[in-house]
């Protein structure tokens, strides 16, 4: 069993507010983890720490045995929940950019994905709709052969048809040598992807386990479980 991602008592504080309160988790190679919780629960904070954008206040975190930072950036493929590409870029420029900076970027795969997502290489990034942007970001992120993929709300603000395309793209392009963390609050559409799930609320893990075992144990889908757990959120 190879552990790709591990946290131990991880905390993150902003001044007086605690965004993460001592969370511990492990993720094996080849598994997809669903990080589920309402807005402001700490999902993005945890993902940004994994991506090396935030520093934890205390506790431990390892990606492929390394503390997040310069050494883990080549093996982590991160999809933030915002448009992070330069405004002057066309889709073609974004592909070239990723190809130049990431050794594991596969241009052929990117072009195939662009075709699958019906995206035109000559389109300007600023002219794309929210759904198209999400598809482009996903194309860039999945075209890398990373050890850990981190997808922050990949379905946020995307119409149902595009959602299906995005989920299909994730399924088709995920390989057993990698692991993936997906955060979402749109659980129903995507729960079939998850091997493991973690329910997070106010910076704490309130429920975690194997997705299939939880379904059997609770007699409910993950979506139903999510609604039950976060009914007051």
């Amino acid at each position: 069993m190879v552990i790709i991602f591990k946290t131990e008592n991880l905390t993150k504080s902003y001044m007086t507010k605690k965004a993460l309160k001592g969370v511990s988790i492990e993720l094996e190679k080849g598994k997809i983890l669903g990080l589920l919780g309402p807005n402001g629960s700490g999902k993005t904070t945890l993902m940004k720490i994994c991506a090396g954008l935030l520093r934890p206040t205390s506790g431990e975190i390892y990606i492929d045995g390394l503390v997040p930072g310069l050494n883990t950036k080549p093996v982590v493929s991160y999809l933030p929940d915002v448009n992070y590409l330069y405004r002057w870029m066309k889709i073609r420029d974004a592909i070239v950019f990723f190809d130049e900076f990431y050794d594991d970027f596969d241009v052929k795969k990117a072009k195939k994905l662009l075709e699958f997502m019906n995206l035109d290489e000559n389109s300007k990034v600023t002219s794309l709709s929210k759904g198209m942007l999400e598809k482009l970001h996903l194309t860039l992120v999945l075209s890398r052969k990373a050890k850990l993929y981190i997808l922050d709300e990949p379905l946020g603000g995307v119409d149902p048809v595009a959602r299906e395309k995005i989920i299909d793209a994730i399924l088709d392009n995920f390989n057993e040598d990698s692991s993936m963390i997906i955060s979402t609050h749109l659980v129903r559409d995507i729960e079939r992807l998850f091997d493991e799930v973690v329910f997070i609320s106010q910076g704490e893990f309130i429920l975690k386990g194997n997705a299939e075992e939880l379904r059997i144990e609770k007699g409910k889908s993950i979506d139903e479980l999510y609604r039950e757990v976060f009914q007051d959120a």
Partner: protein
Amino acid sequence: MLRLLKYELRGKLVFLGGTGIILAMLNLFIFLDCNVFRAYKYEEGINLAFSMMLGFAAMIVVIVGAITRLEKDLYSETGYLTFTLPKSGYSILGAKLLASFIEIVEFSILNVIFFALQIVPHVHISKSDISLMFKLLAENYRFILFTLFMMILFLIIFILMVYFSLVSVRSFSKRRKLGKAASFCVFIGLSILIGFTIGLLEKAFPQIIKLNFNNFNTHIVTQNIQIDTIGEVSLNIAASIFSLILPFILFISTSFLIEKRIDI
């Protein structure tokens, strides 16, 4: 770093290209107004004053652009792209510094050209004047290089001080408005601290070194060129060494903060 540099330059290409074109058009307008439409005469020096003002304004635009280059990555979404790249703090900062430096040098050259264009039609420069100028340049290259070096050093220190102020504040504050005001305060504090340190060093170690550019202690007057200069420059040794080390200290500490401390 060179790849990053390419994208840094590309990112400001349209903005600075536009600024350059506007600068050129306004200079052309001043040139025509002075030489063709005759709204004012060259002798009044108004065209030169306008050209200098335009050049000054353009330099402010370029320097503000250099500052916002890092500020944007620290406070907007592009930071997610820049700071997840497998590039060290040195590379990221080095690319930004170099790009800013290139742009400032580019616009300095443009300003000199536009200013010269305002003068050239009114000054008769003979072949002997030109050969004299080249002779002076060749004879006094040490002084010219020294002056250029000092200008570049102060420019780099200035940009690095701004970058250090931005990054150090971003290391403990996420709020954009508060961050900008705090960065300005840090910059002022840092300027005072550096000035104070130089003063202390000059008092504690008053030894000076005299750089004698003895070729340049000339007073030359030809028909159109007059050059008066001093041939000797005195430098406090301790303060000079500090000024030479300072950019390295600022660069290393800012790179460290970028790589290890900032929260995006």
